[in-house]
């Protein structure tokens, strides 16, 4: 056992030398994650302000005016169109004059006073899904805040007898990101994206590269087993990927001020599980593809692209077509995204997160087993 470990250690040490000597790997391991953090962290959080908003206020009450001013005073929306006709909003959205429209029903104030609840309609321009998603988040948050204020006022009026009953309940979904900073949402998700991308990029080249350079021949003629070779390589890239996790958490925490409410240990452990899947995929392609180039492209297509598009990173899975939703169940990043956001923002632990962790673990084991077994020593 310890003797087998020494062989794996030799391979790990050698991989580190390759990584150190290859400027591309430093680029992938250090520069790229930081660049992504800044591109997404800033690109999404600060660029989307003054979203052009159209307003239809059929209520024309103090309550409805308060809601509208909550939108404008947030800084995220600027009212550029007012009308009584719904069709005007549709036309303006079509023409791109507005990005979003707020429709307050006639019964808004009456409903709140009498039933204690109401709903408003928000129309979004889906042609720019990024902005739409962020705008939806903002809008839901603003409505949620209004709701909380209404509840508070009511409880105060009624002498605190009836406690919390939300006024504008159904839309409130971003309650854990209370200051509506999308960086809080983006940075934890980026951990999944960055880990998937770096581990796929770094590992996918390794076996195919040895085959291309002919070095696999010497290794295959040695008594090192395929398992020892794979484990040594995995150990090297896991170390590197964990350094990336720390890097992203630190930059997210210190630069973007993203809260970290959960257990660091749970983040490390679940990252480990996710890495198994990401590295396993990289190795799978590395062993199966004829050249380093095709291996890298294949690894990127199967790890990076789904981890951005099919993971819930940008687009909520619940709003995807049914077929696509089914596909996302085999995307490891989908589960890891839920885990990291839960740990960072909600501070929840194993008690709540065990279902996604379990799904992720199952996927990881399957992928890693396929990755390891795909490398045959015969050349």
């Amino acid at each position, binding site marked *: 056992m310890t003797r087998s470990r020494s062989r794996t250690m030799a391979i790990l040490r050698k991989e580190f030398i390759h990584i150190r000597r290859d400027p591309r790997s430093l680029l992938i391991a250090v520069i790229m994650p930081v660049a992504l953090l800044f591109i997404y962290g800033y690109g999404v959080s600060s660029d989307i302000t003054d979203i052009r908003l159209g307003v239809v206020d059929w209520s024309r009450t103090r309550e409805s005016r308060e809601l509208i001013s909550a939108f404008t005073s947030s800084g995220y929306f600027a009212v550029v169109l007012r009308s009584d006709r719904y069709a005007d909003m549709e036309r303006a959205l079509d023409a791109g004059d507005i990005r979003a429209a707020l429709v307050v029903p006639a019964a808004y104030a009456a409903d709140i006073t009498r039933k204690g609840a109401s709903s408003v309609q928000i129309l979004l321009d889906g042609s720019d899904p990024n902005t739409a998603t962020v705008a939806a988040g903002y809008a839901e948050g603003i409505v949620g805040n209004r709701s909380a204020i209404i509840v508070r006022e009511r409880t105060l009026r009624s002498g605190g007898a009836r406690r919390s009953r939300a006024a504008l309940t159904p839309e409130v979904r971003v309650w854990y990101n209370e200051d509506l900073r999308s960086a809080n949402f983006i940075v934890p998700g980026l951990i999944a994206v960055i880990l998937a991308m770096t581990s796929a990029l770094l590992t996918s080249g390794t076996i195919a590269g040895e085959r291309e350079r*002919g*070095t696999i*021949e010497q*290794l295959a003629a*040695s008594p090192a087993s395929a398992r020892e070779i794979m484990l040594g390589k995995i150990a090297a890239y896991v170390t590197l990927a964990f350094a990336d996790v720390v890097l992203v958490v630190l930059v997210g925490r210190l630069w973007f001020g993203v809260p970290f409410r959960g257990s660091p240990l749970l983040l490390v452990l679940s990252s480990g599980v996710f890495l198994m899947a990401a590295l396993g995929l990289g190795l799978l392609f590395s062993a199966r593809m004829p050249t380093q180039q095709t291996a890298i492209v294949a690894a990127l297509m199967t790890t990076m692209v789904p981890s951005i598009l099919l993971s819930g990173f940008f687009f909520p899975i619940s709003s995807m077509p049914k077929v696509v939703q089914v596909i996302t169940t085999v995307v490891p990043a989908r589960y890891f995204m839920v885990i990291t956001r839960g740990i960072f923002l909600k501070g929840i632990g194993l008690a709540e997160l065990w279902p996604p962790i379990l799904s992720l673990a199952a996927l990881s084991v399957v992928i890693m087993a396929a990755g390891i077994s795909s490398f045959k020593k015969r050349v």
Partner: protein
Amino acid sequence: MSEAAILCRDLVKRFGAFTAVDRVSFEVKPGTVFGFLGPNGSGKSTTIRMLCGLLLPTSGRAAVGGVDVARNPEGVKRQIGYMSQRFSLYQDLTVRENLEFYAGVYRIPRRERQARIEEVMTRTGVIADAGTLAGDMSVGVRQRLALGAALLHRPAIVFLDEPTSGVDPISRRRFWTLIGELSAEGITALVTTHHMDEAQRCDELVLMRTGRVVARGTPADLIVAHAPPVILSVRCDRPQEALAIVQKTSGVRRAAVRGVRLHVAAEDDGLAERLDAELTSAGHACTEVRRIGATLEDVFMELAMGEAPP
């Protein structure tokens, strides 16, 4: 007599419908230098890779150091050293790093490791380049490093696949001095080569062609058994033009220009006069027609380039 270090019996390797190695049989005595000759594509590397446990034979049997290559390839790998045809150490690692890596892979005990690496570097003459990246070295030094890596774990048998191709003559000689030393220490070496002077230094040889062994024995045996009956060295003016005339003369098996002379493999002794007459009548001034001794080169040309074996 001790057991053969390497033993092949009817070894066959097919790639799909193509037979790369066709019923190859030979034995290598321990401590000898065994040469593998044959034109490109004749199946030398494929045979070596089967013997190293890298390729599974399609049929036949082979044992290296008494271990069956098909049944226990990992057992074979533990006791052999292998230098592949293409340089297969890491070009982005230094000489020392490459050796340290393989010392780890072969599980050389930690306390012995540095001494063993120094010893190998000294022996192969790469110690001055210990800190140089393998990719920055000349082919000659690189090949000596590859040999060093193959010797690190003190194997009893080494397979060297074209270790001197692309290497300058001085480095080649140095390389063969090393092979001679190994042999003196009792290490068995199987070496493939294209150079006849190197083949001459082998204890025994096999000559392969289209996957088959077409001749085997000591260099002297091969010359006796397979050299053409008569070899003539012809000196005349405009040898390039004269070649066409010589090739058409009856009794000439093969002819080639060697510098200012023509090297002619002939059926019988009487050809010397006929050649002289033919060339003179064609207007070539023939200054000398001399009978010379056959070399391995003649054997190689005869067997490898002549009619295909049945």
